[in-house]
C-alpha cells in the first residue's frame, strides 16, 4: 500500500506524523515507553526458572546443563548444626557434581508456619528440613502428596529402624535423618555448684532451693529462651516419661480420646512451677528477649548456672568454648519431682519436594550424605550430635552422662507418644509466653492445649474424635 503511495502523499504523511509527535506530550511518550518496557520485563520474568537456575538449550551437552542446577534447601536455624558441616558437605557435593545447594535458613519461630504456607502455595524448597515424627509428619508436610518416596534408596537399610517411623507414611520412606536419640536434661555449671556447695536437685523443692542459692550469689540460676518459640515448651512435653509412670496406658488413652489431656494434672503443676520460677526471678530479667543461641556464651562466662536442652548441647558448648570442657554436668529436670529420663528418637529430617525440577540431583545429594565418609564427617563436624541414627556409627556420648542415664528409668517424650501435641508446639510456646507476662493462667493453657487437640483431630476426621 505504502509502496503504491505517490511521493508527495507520503511526504505529507511523514510530516503529519512528525507534527502529531511534536504535539504529543513528551512525558506521556516516555511513560508509555516505560509501561511497554515494564510489561516486557514482567513477561520475561515470568518465564524465568525458580531457584535462579537457567534452563540449558537442547543443543547444550548434559554436563554443561548440570552445572547450572541449584537446589534450594530450606531449614530452620536450629535444624542444621551451627558448625556448618552440612554446608561444607554440600560444597563437596558441588565440587563432585556441579550441583549447587542454596541454603535458605529461617528463624525457628517462623519455620513451621512458613514451610506449610510455601507447600500450600506450591513454592516450597527443593529440599526441606522438617521436624519429623510419626504422629505429626502427615499434618506437617503430607509426604504422600508433597514429597518424593525414597524407600528404594540403598541407604535406607543402613538407617536405624527406630527412626524410620518418623520419616515414613504407610511403610514408605520419604526422608533421611541423621541425629540419633536425644535426651532432654538440665546442664549445670559444676564449678558454680561446687563453690556454692550445691547438690543436683531431685525434687521440685530442692530445685527451687538450688536456684535461690544461685540467685543469692548474684548469678542467674537458669537461662530461659523464649524468642525461638520452642524452648519454653520443653518442661511441659519432655517430661512425658514421668507422666506415663503415673497413669496406666496414658499415651494410648490420650490417642484414643479415652482421656483428656487436662486430666494429666502434672502438666498444670509444671506450668505453675514454671510461672513461679519466672516470678522468683530464676530466669533472670531478660528471658523474654533471649534466644537459645545466646545460652552457650552466658553459660561459658559463668553468668548463668543451668540450661535445659538435649545432651548434644554440652559437646557443642565445649567445642565453641573450650574453657567449659569438663565443667558441664547434667541432671533430669525435676519439675513436679520428675526423676525419669525422656528420650526422643525423632528429629529433623530432610525431604525432597515432589514438585522439584531436580529430584534426581536431590536424591544424589542424599546418597552422598549417606556415604560412610560423609557420615563420619557429619558426626565429627557437628559437635551438637552425640550419635547418628545410622548403623555402624560410633556414639560420642560421655561415659559420665551415659552412666547417669542408665541409673534412671527412661521413657519417650510426650510429643512423640501423643497425637496433636507436636503440631501445636509453637502455639503452646506462645501460651507460655502469655503466662509469663500475666495474660494467661496455667489452667487456660491446659484448656487451649485440649481445645487445639480437638480441633486438629476434627480437621483430620480422626475416628477417635469424630465417631
Amino acid at each position, binding site marked *: 500500500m505504502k509502496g503504491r503511495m505517490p511521493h508527495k502523499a507520503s511526504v505529507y504523511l511523514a510530516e503529519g506524523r512528525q507534527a502529531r509527535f511534536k504535539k504529543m506530550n513528551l512525558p506521556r511518550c516516555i511513560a508509555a515507553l516505560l509501561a511497554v518496557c515494564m510489561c516486557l520485563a514482567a513477561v520475561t520474568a515470568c518465564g524465568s526458572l525458580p531457584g535462579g537456575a537457567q534452563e540449558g538449550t537442547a543443543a547444550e551437552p548434559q554436563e554443561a546443563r548440570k552445572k547450572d542446577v541449584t537446589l534450594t534447601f530450606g531449614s530452620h536455624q536450629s535444624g542444621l548444626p551451627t558448625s556448618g558441616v552440612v554446608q561444607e558437605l554440600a560444597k563437596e557435593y558441588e565440587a563432585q557434581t556441579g550441583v549447587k545447594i542454596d541454603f535458605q535458613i529461617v528463624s525457628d519461630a517462623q519455620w513451621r508456619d512458613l514451610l506449610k504456607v510455601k507447600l500450600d502455595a506450591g513454592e516450597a524448597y527443593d529440599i526441606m528440613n522438617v521436624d519429623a515424627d510419626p504422629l505429626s509428619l502427615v499434618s506437617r508436610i503430607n509426604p504422600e502428596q508433597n514429597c518424593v518416596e525414597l524407600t528404594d534408596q540403598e541407604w535406607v537399610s543402613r538407617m536405624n529402624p527406630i527412626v524410620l517411623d518418623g520419616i515414613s507414611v504407610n511403610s514408605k520412606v520419604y526422608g533421611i535423618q541423621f541425629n540419633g536419640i536425644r535426651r532432654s536434661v538440665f546442664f549445670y555449671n559444676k564449678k558454680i555448684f561446687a563453690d556454692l556447695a550445691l547438690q543436683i536437685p531431685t525434687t521440685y523443692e530442692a530445685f527451687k532451693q538450688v536456684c535461690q542459692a544461685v540467685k543469692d550469689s548474684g548469678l542467674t540460676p537458669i537461662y530461659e529462651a523464649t524468642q525461638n518459640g520452642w524452648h519454653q515448651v520443653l518442661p511441659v512435653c519432655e517430661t512425658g516419661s514421668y507422666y506415663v509412670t503415673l497413669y496406666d496406658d496414658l499415651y494410648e488413652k490420650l490417642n484414643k480420646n479415652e482421656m483428656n489431656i487436662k486430666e494429666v494434672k502434672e502438666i498444670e503443676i509444671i506450668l505453675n512451677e514454671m510461672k513461679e520460677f519466672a516470678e522468683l526471678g530464676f530466669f533472670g530479667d531478660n528471658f*523474654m*528477649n533471649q534466644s537459645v543461641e545466646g545460652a552457650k556464651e552466658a553459660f561459658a562466662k559463668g553468668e548463668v548456672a543451668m540450661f535445659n536442652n538435649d545432651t548434644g548441647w554440652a559437646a557443642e558448648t565445649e567445642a565453641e568454648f573450650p574453657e567449659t570442657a569438663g565443667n558441664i554436668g547434667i541432671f533430669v529436670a525435676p519439675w513436679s519431682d520428675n526423676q525419669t529420663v525422656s528420650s526422643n528418637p525423632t528429629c529433623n529430617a530432610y525431604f525432597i519436594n515432589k514438585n522439584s525440577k531436580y529430584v534426581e540431583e536431590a536424591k544424589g545429594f542424599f546418597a552422598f550424605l549417606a556415604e560412610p565418609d560423609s557420615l563420619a564427617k557429619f558426626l565429627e563436624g557437628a559437635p551438637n550430635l552425640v550419635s547418628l541414627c545410622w548403623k555402624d556409627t560410633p556414639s560420642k556420648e560421655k561415659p559420665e552422662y551415659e552412666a547417669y542415664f542408665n541409673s534412671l528409668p527412661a521413657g519417650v517424650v510426650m510429643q512423640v507418644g501423643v497425637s496433636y501435641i507436636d503440631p501445636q508446639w509453637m502455639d503452646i510456646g*506462645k501460651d507460655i509466653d*502469655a503466662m509469663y507476662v500475666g495474660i*494467661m493462667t496455667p489452667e487456660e493453657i491446659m484448656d487451649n492445649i485440649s481445645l487445639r487437640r480437638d480441633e486438629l483431630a476434627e*480437621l483430620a476426621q480422626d475416628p477417635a474424635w469424630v465417631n
Partner: protein
Amino acid sequence: MCLLNFNKTYPTYYAIPALLLFVIFFFLPGVLGIFYSFTDWNSLRAEVNFVGLKNYLKIFSGQYDFVKYILNTVRFTGLTMITKTVFGIIFAMLLTHKLVKFQNIQRMVIFIPQVMSFLIVGLVFKSLLNPVTGFFNNFLKSAGLSVLARNWLSDSNLALSTVIAVDTWKGVGYLMIIVIAGIHGISSDYYEAAQIDGASFLQKTWHITLPLLKPVILNVTVLNLTYGLRVFDIIYALTNGGPGHATEVINTAVYSEFSKGNYAMGTTLSGILFVFVMLLSFFILRVLEPEEKS
C-alpha cells in the same frame, strides 16, 4: 494530540476491560474466599464439606481469641491512622515552610524508612529495643532516665504501642510526601490575603491549609485504613504476634490458620476482613464524593 479527550463523556462500556480485570483478579478471589468460609476445607482431607456458619460462630463464640485479634487490628488501624496523619501533616508543613533549610534532604531522611524492607526494620528495631542490650534503654539509662526504660516488645501492655510507633516511624514519610504535594497545590493568593489581614501562622494553618487539604487528608485516611486493617509484615517481623498473643491481628491469625492447614478458618477470617475493608472504603469514598464533585 492526546489519545483521550478528557472533556468528553465516553460510553460506559469503555470501563469493561478494567472492570473485568478488577473482577477477575480482586473481586472474585474475595468472593471465592467467602464461599470457602462456609466449608471445612483443610489440608488433611481432600473432600470439602459445607458446614454453614460454623466457622463464623467459632470466631465470635468467645472460645477462641479471634475477637481479640480483630480488636487489635482495629486498634492498630485507628492509632496508626491518627499518628501517621498528624505527624505527616506536621512534617509536611514544617518542610514546606520557607524558614526551614535543606528541605529536600530532610524530606529524604524522613522518607527513607518507607523504602526499607519490613524484615530489616523488624530486625533493627528488635535489636534497638532489647531491654538489656538495646540502644534505647541504654541511652535512657546513660541520660539518667532509667525510670523510662521498658521491656518495649516483651511487655504485653506495651508491645502493640511499640509496634504502632515503629510502623508510624516507617510510614510517616510516605504520607508527608502526599501532604506536601497537597500543600503545593494551594494557591499562594490565600496566604498573601491572610498576611495582609494580619493572620498568624496558626490562623493560616487552621483556616486555609487544613480546610484546603481536606481531600488529601481523606485520601490519606483511606490509604491508612486499608493498610492498617491488612497489617501483617511489621507485626510478623517485630513480635510474631507476641508476647503471648498480645499483638496478634487478623492477618497473623489467618497466616497461623493456613499454616495449621485449616484453610476454611483462614478464609473465614480473610472474608471478614474483606467485607470490613470493602464497607469502610465504600463509606469513606461516599464521604469523599461531594468533595470531588465540588
